[in-house]
């Protein structure tokens, strides 16, 4: 561990505390505190261990879930798609053989890996956390260094509990001030991505700071860090504070009693020092952020809901112009049209970005007393069995069901359509997920990313619309 008196960032401190060894060229063997595993990116890694006669070094630091492939409807029947079933069965065989703790489909706590980790207290501040999934950045909301890895690295972590990496650059994105009504963490993050672009964070770890970030609850901070990868960053971080400690306290796998208090002291010491160096700094004014929506096929194609769709003639670079035209054609939009008023076919409220209890409450606040518009399919997919249970205890299921929403079981669902929840070609969807890539939610599907409140507003009006107009009516 390098001993230094110069001011360090939150990232620097977590990094320094996990370096096992620095190799000649600066590559570090970095210790990993938590390895989360799911069915899609792990089978080849376990097979690799088996072929080389290796074991899982730290089963007690590893947790497996099923989420990507699982049906979100009736689970009393066997899984229909044979390949999905095989992937799940393969995970079950692997966790049994290698002794890895596992949340099976039948568990009341099953859910999306990035919802389950924080919810169970498996993911904690100050930790290094990896998972074979790019949205592992979510866990950075706790003040942990969390990033997605490929399957070869999954195998490397299973075998050695470390990964090989060089330190990232530091970026700080500060959002100062107070957001207006109807503006959520999702809108803040879309605004950030719209500003810096999908490659803006490449090679960096982003620390989110400023009063608007400190004001966010943990669910909001998770939404923010979740989409750090959509800004190209290796990871996102929020400094752990009293909001974090209150959230962590009492969770099943969190430290208890005196151990918890000692851990809090350590976690408090991790905040970036005054004068710490950031390679890149970006500042946004919270007051200027409005409810946002994407119009195109990249998360940086962001508009305020009051805005209009760009034209290929807006840009000089021919490659960029061609890309705008391709996105317009794919999305079935006309250059210059107002984005509000565009009719939707499907509304998806769920995913590791926005499927927590707070997200469902925000959607329910818009839906209450209204009904899903004629011809729109609207679905709610809670992030975990525990989120679903808690929402039902508050009667949110009734709000959604009475309004004509589908109330489903936990999983990744229509965020990426690996299970039967998919868009059909040409269908337009207001979605609380994280990626609007071509074909992401199903071949030919058209995705507009937005907050749970905005998605709920689209469901009840049948169109992309400004949620503030609906909220105004009910105030």
């Amino acid at each position, binding site marked *: 561990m390098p001993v230094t008196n110069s001011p360090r960032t939150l990232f620097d401190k977590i990094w320094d*505390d996990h370096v*096992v*060894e620095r*190799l*000649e*060229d600066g*590559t570090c*063997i970095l*210790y990993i*505190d938590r390895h989360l595993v799911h069915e*899609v*990116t792990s089978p*080849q890694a376990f097979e690799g261990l088996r072929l*080389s006669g*290796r074991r899982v070094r730290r089963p*007690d*630091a*590893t947790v497996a879930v099923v989420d990507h492939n699982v049906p979100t409807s009736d689970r009393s029947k066997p899984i229909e798609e044979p*390949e999905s079933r*095989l*992937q799940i069965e393969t995970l079950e065989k692997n966790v049994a053989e290698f*002794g890895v*703790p*596992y949340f099976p489909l039948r*568990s*009341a*706590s099953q859910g999306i890996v990035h919802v389950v980790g924080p919810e169970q207290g498996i993911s*904690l501040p100050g930790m290094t956390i990896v998972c*074979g999934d*790019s949205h*592992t950045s979510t866990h950075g909301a706790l003040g942990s260094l969390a990033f*997605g*890895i*490929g*399957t*070869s*690295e999954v195998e*490397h972590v299973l*075998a*050695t509990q*470390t990964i*090989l990496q*060089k330190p990232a650059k530091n970026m700080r994105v500060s959002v100062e001030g107070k957001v207006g009504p109807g503006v959520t963490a999702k809108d803040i993050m879309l605004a950030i991505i719209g500003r810096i672009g*999908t*490659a803006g964070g*490449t090679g960096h770890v982003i620390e989110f700071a400023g009063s608007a970030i400190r004001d966010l609850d943990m669910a909001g901070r998770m939404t923010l860090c979740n989409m750090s990868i959509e800004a*190209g960053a290796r990871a996102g971080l929020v400094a752990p504070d009293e909001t974090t400690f209150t959230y962590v306290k009492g969770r099943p*796998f969190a*430290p208890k009693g005196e151990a918890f208090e*000692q*851990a809090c002291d350590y976690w408090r010491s991790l905040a970036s020092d005054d004068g710490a160096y950031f390679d890149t700094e970006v500042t946004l004014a919270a007051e200027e952020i409005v409810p946002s929506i994407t119009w195109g096929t*990249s998360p940086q194609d962001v508009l305020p809901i009051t805005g209009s769709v760009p034209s290929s003639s807006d840009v000089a670079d021919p*490659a960029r112009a061609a*890309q705008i035209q391709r996105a317009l054609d794919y999305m079935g939009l006309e250059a210059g049209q107002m984005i509000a008023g565009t009719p939707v076919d499907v509304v998806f409220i769920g995913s590791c970005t926005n499927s927590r209890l707070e997200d469902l409450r925000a959607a329910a606040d818009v839906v209450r007393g209204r009904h899903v518009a004629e011809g729109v399919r609207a679905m709610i997919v809670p992030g975990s069995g525990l989120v679903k249970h808690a929402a039902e205890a508050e009667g949110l299921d009734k709000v959604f069901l009475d309004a004509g929403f589908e109330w489903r079981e936990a999983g990744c669902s229509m965020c*990426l359509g*690996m299970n039967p929840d998919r868009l059909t070609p040409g269908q337009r969807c207001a979605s609380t997920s994280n*990626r609007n890539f*071509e*074909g992401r939610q199903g*071949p030919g599907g058209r995705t507009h990313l937005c907050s749970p409140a905005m998605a709920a507003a689209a469901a009840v009006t049948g169109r992309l619309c400004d949620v503030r107009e609906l909220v105004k009516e009910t105030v």
Partner: protein
Amino acid sequence: MDKFTELTAIAAPMPTENIDTDQIIPARFLKTIQRTGLGKNAFAAQRYDADGNEKPDFVLNQEPYRHAEILITYDNLGCGSSREHAPWALLDFGIRCVIAPSFADIFFNNCFKNGILPIRLPREICDELMGDARQGANSRLTVDLERQVIVRPNGETIAFDVDPFRRHMLLEGLDDIGQTMAHDAEITSFEHRPSRAWVPSITIGTVK
């Protein structure tokens, strides 16, 4: 992993930014439990129509590019999902080298782990190499990792940077895991540091 030393091959030009890993291999093909066999579905949405027929205007459906072993694109290649199925699909198609002005971090890393060499070069140079690639089957690029140069069909050489550790691993076709396991004593000693006492263990019986 296969070694990467020198490659002389056809290059396919794809002058597009932000080619994401969902494009390289759509999610519905991630249900395999193997690393091989994904090549036929690489770029599936751009390569095939709804009936599964090849779209003739897509570069990898054209001669000579259906035999390409090098891919040249614009910025931010491999953004999005961490799926290693993306480099597996490229490798299974036959791609051993990808050239772009910039890459997404996880994809960049995943390439090295599979014997694919990712090379960062300025956009103007990518444009020149795409120009070479458009000259057809006799116009091959040579990528020499030992010398860290690309040799153009006109004999001109273009130098490129590569991380020394990763270069070594590629040239030798080495397995990362074996290398790291040689540091087992250091890892064990790290695990026993008193400052780590607060990190709880998760045991199998405790997950419900």
